[in-house]
């Protein structure tokens, strides 16, 4: 799937929960999820190969009641085919 299509999917997904992010230009990255074997060993499970995923990061400044700026971040994780895996937001 093309980068622009992935971006559109991510924008649509984030807009469902964060309509205020609709006009935010996301940072779109292709990432490899490989993790060192030692973590699998510590968890007592067989090592799994990494996958390639897309992550779109949306950042927007919000203002608290006291007038203090805090940054809201929303991240959309998608697989290579553009399937939405997860939507996350900063606390």
């Amino acid at each position, binding site marked *: 799937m093309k980068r622009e299509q992935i971006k559109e999917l991510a924008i649509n997904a984030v807009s469902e929960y964060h309509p205020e992010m609709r006009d935010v230009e996301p940072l779109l990255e292709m990432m490899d999820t490989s993790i060192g074997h*030692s*973590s699998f060993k510590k968890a007592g499970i067989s090592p799994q190969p990494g996958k390639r*995923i897309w992550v779109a990061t949306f950042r927007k400044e919000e203002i608290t*009641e006291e007038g*203090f700026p805090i940054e809201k*971040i929303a*991240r959309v994780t998608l697989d290579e085919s553009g399937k939405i895996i*997860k939507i996350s937001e*900063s*606390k």
Partner: protein
Amino acid sequence: MLNIIWNKKSIKDEFGEKGAQKLKNAFNSVKGEIFDTTPYLVSEIVANSKKDSSFLIIGGDHLFPFYKAENPTRDGDDNIWTDNFYASTDDDPLLPERAIGRLPDGGNLDFLIEKIHSIHYPENDEIRRDETFGLSAAVWVESSRNVYRVISKRKLLASPPESTHSIGIDGRTDMFYFNLHGSDKTNKWYGQGNGKYPIALAPENIPELGKAIVFTEACYGAYTIQKSISDSIALTFLKKGVRYFVGSTTIAYGPPVPPPTEADLIGTLFFKEIVKGEKVGNALLNAKVKFFKEMIDNQGFLDGNDRKTLLQFVLYGNPEGRLI
């Protein structure tokens, strides 16, 4: 077996020779082995320890620096401050292998000594589960209920409408759960709802407390670097009597709705261990291992947020304590 980790030189540089001696004296009645060491040498001590050993770091970042892990998300945090590294037998900090906690100092030696004195006797580290308090940003109430119901049947408060002006915390509260916004620049946590971000919790809201436990999902909930006690909700909780505080040193993530992932998931797993009667340090350690397994089972991988979650949650308090 509790192992206490400190660096005498950094304590001496900060509080003078007398201060270092006072602190050393405070260790006298703590049951455990004392190590005067540096961050570079802790792994060796851990590698030579038994699997059921636990570790307690003395002091905040300026006395015994957090390990700076690379941030796997591009979100504004340069690094992730973690203690996982000091609880690992190798140089991979993602998953710890031993229970670990830390006593931050807030730049105040008397406060640090007071916290050390509070761990002298095992019975002091046991807390009851009589009263609970849960407060969530209104937009996350559905997700937060899933976490809170592990420890309580009471109503979870939401902000808004609740705010620093309306909430009242009972001094008899033993367990706290917060799912609010936080910042590294203020000493307040914030709610969210109807496009507003009210102040939900400020240091002034925290009464004198007994031996309570706090779990917070707030961004920077456990960020104490260069903070005095009153500059930090985490340090204020500890000052007011809280024995165990678990929170994030950096920007934390969670889902907008259930099922629980990231901070919601680590909180759920932590509280499940706590109510089973597990020691607090083991509860966080087990929660991290279970988090890792669950994400591999359900998702097939850990993304940057998941890895950040594992690294950023730290325990302030004696890892040997437990809920009874």
